[in-house]
């Protein structure tokens, strides 16, 4: 009997398994885009064939961070901006887990920006969903790094003088190997993209547009949107970094002009994930480190391996 019998279990999975018994109803506001993420994620899991017990969902702090309360799996509701470092270590500790990280635009592109950049660079094998509602939701509506320039809020009474961040461009420049944007109003595309992202072996970043009807009434509800894969204007080869970069730039700019471009922007299936790189160079063992603690077997001693050097 293996230690983690949930991992790799081969059985039919019902999407209802991902609805918790204890907190089945989210506390998000009526009309909140966050419901869309939850739904798409629940839909994606049976498709990728992973169960609640073999999935670890690590979230940050924000309305978005509560995803782990409303999604049934192993969950880690961490601190603001730090979902990625918690998540990537769990994956290194036990590569058999399906690791998903999620948080808000403030969480991921604001306070957590550096981890975002470095996790993408290292290409950890995980999915990162950023709930981009262009606002700090949970703290009651302050300007966020994706708020449009000129955005007025309690902390920016004259409107923000800052250009918004370009999340996909940063992701690509940092090294993410899968980059997409979808929207809560677009459930079918959202679920498809989540499936691809989870299946991707590397860092998959999804900028997930989620409307916040409570604090960001002026913001577009992200409709009408254009799926760049369906659009005549774009003929993007998602394997081509240059084209991807240009298309992202377009999409990021046009978002603030009222045009919502979604879809897959970049996909490099060949870049090895960080775990693969490390295992390949013998830096970490092939067997999941976490398993050893549950198995019988010899444990190395410094007395045998290291003390000699000191005599």
């Amino acid at each position: 009997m293996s230690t983690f019998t949930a991992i790799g279990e081969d059985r039919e999975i019902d999407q209802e398994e991902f609805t918790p018994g204890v907190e089945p109803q989210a506390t998000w506001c009526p009309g909140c885009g966050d419901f869309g993420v939850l739904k798409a994620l629940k839909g994606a899991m049976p498709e990728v064939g992973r169960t609640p017990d073999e999935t670890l969902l690590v979230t940050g702090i924000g309305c978005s961070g509560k995803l782990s309360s409303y999604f049934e799996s192993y969950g880690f509701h961490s601190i603001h901006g730090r979902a990625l470092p918690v998540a990537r270590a769990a994956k290194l500790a036990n590569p058999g887990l399906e690791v998903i990280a999620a948080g808000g635009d403030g969480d991921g592109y604001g306070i957590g920006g550096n981890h975002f950049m470095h996790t993408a660079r290292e290409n950890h094998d995980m999915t990162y969903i950023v709930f981009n509602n262009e606002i700090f939701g949970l703290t009651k509506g302050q300007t966020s790094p994706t708020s449009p320039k000129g955005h007025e809020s309690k902390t920016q009474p004259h409107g923000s003088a800052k250009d918004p961040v370009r999340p996909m461009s940063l992701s690509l420049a940092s090294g993410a190997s899968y980059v997409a944007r979808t929207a809560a109003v677009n459930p079918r595309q959202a679920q498809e993209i989540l499936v691809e992202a989870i299946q991707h072996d590397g860092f998959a970043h999804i900028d997930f547009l989620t409307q916040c009807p409570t604090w960001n009434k002026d913001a577009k509800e992200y409709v009408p949107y254009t799926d760049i894969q369906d659009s005549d204007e774009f003929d993007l080869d998602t394997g081509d970094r240059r084209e991807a970069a240009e298309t992202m730039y377009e999409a990021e700019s046009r978002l603030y002009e009222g045009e919502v471009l979604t879809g897959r922007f970049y996909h490099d299936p060949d870049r090895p994930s960080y775990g693969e790189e490390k295992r390949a160079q013998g830096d970490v063992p092939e067997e999941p480190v976490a398993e050893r603690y549950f198995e019988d077997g010899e444990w190395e001693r410094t007395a045998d391996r290291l003390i000699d050097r000191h005599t």
Partner: protein
Amino acid sequence: MTDQTLMWRIAGGSGDGIDSTSQNFAKALMRSGLNVFTHRHYPSRIRGGHTYVEVRASNEPVRSRGDGFNFLLALGDSFARSEQDGAYYGNEKVKPLTESLADLNEGGVVLYDTGFFEEADIAEIRLEERAEENGWHVYPMDLRGLAREHGREVMRNTAGVGAAAALLGQDTGYFEELVREAMSGEVMEANLTILEMAYEQASEFEFSHDLRVPTGGHDTDQALMSGSNAIAYAALDSGCRFIAGYPMTPWTDVFTIMSQNLSEFGGVAEQVEDEIAAASLAIGASHAGVKSMSGSSGGGFALMSEPLGLAEMTETPLVLVEAMRAGPSTGMPTKTEQADLEHVLYTSQGDSNRVVFAPGNLEEAYEQTRTAFQVAYDYQIPAILLYDQKLGGEMRNVDVDFFDREPDPSLGATLTEEEISEAAHHESGKFERYRHDPDDGVSPRSVPGQTGGRFLASGNEHNAVGHISEDPDNRKAQMDRRVRKLERVRAELDDSEHSHQTHHGPADADLGMLVWGSQQDTVFEAVDRLNAAGHEVKALGVSDMLPYPETEVRGFLESVRECVVVEMNATGQFRGLTQKELGQYGEKLASLLKYDGEAFEPGEVVEGFESSIDGGQPAAGNMRFVPAAGD
């Protein structure tokens, strides 16, 4: 003991190989049968700047640096800046001589490199006159020339060692052995030649000094290592298989040793973007079922403040090591201090819920690191090992047998799938990982990937399955449970056979000293000297910072009339902690403080203690004496 020990100092510039030379010297003496102890002094600078290492060696145990030193090998700083008008750094070139001479004991021996220090330099510093005044025995030798002639200039260190061996009456056998082990080919040959030549050349001096290397013999095999080695090795023996970190002096040593060995031990080492990430990764890995650690120094540990609180609230087992250096802020990165105690005890919002040990020496560092892992995983609580630049960096010989231990792969209060299936679940199927009821406060955990163990770990207050809850009754129950764990840890530590606290000196003495961390063995040496000089004094070295060993310390304080708390910081943090925890004894407790970056010498403690029982005279040198509150 001072008189029978060799206190050998090698001085030069950073980047001149002083460190490795001194290690070889110490190892050779250890192999010759002596006990050795090193003390390092170096600037926060990569090349140049006065640096030295002292090796104290004796056939009796040595657990501290000595008072001053009695043999100087002055090599010269090859990266010294040239003097310049208006610059306050002065003549860096002669510092290895001038600055060292200031601490050289009367009757000491000076061996200096005439290939480096020119006649004008020697004249400028009035070496001859001062030697006469202090009874120094001076031996000038062209080490650099010798090295150049038979090899390369950098080998002047070898020449210095050879000459020193001759002057100290030690044959070069052990040194040769070490050269042969570490090198090969031409480089080895050249070094051997230089060692030999220097030995011979120095033997030709007419010795005016009596100082010789003592002879000794060890009953058991000895290993030479630093406190950082001991900490890292204890982590490995504890089954730690994950470390994440970011370099910072002096914590880097532990991080490096772990990084160099973990993959061989089947683990993972990650150097990451910053310390917030480092602590967060350690939490993530531990959550996923791997025994994990992180650590840092100063500002790096400050950045771990928030993740530390997350570990407390999610009850994720975690070991952090904190290596103190002189603060605040960047402070003096390569200098030692004990001023992070309060920071480590209390940083992170909310009532702190952690365990903190501050070992007093190398063996304690090993033991207490192991206890830290055990407590962290048994009680699902962060355990912090607090040490300092001094303890991390000083090298000592230790019985090889000391390390003959069983590894500890236990994940503590973690269930197997079988146990999970029998454990309590909420009716919804979620595992009750945070039940209120365990008596000892520990509600066992599951690990992601285990069938049936699903729960939510949250930094928000949460209920039994981990879901966010702001219910006041649940809140109180959860807080009480978490606080309770510390009481149990205290009880377990009190019950254990070996207390982390160490008593030294005559039990019936009615004067006391309290000390913690790296200054312990120095104070113990001072206690021995004080008793030898007719005082009646004993000391207690405290390692358990939190939970505080109330009974033991209370017992000690009740047994003495007055007590001096010796520590390396400016505000008497451990004295404050003691007063906080015991709520009394303020009128008995005086402080002997030092915070200039240099550890206490035993003689300073003797002096400081004597001035204190004299009714609180101001302490000499850079020490500060703060009398008891009642005075």
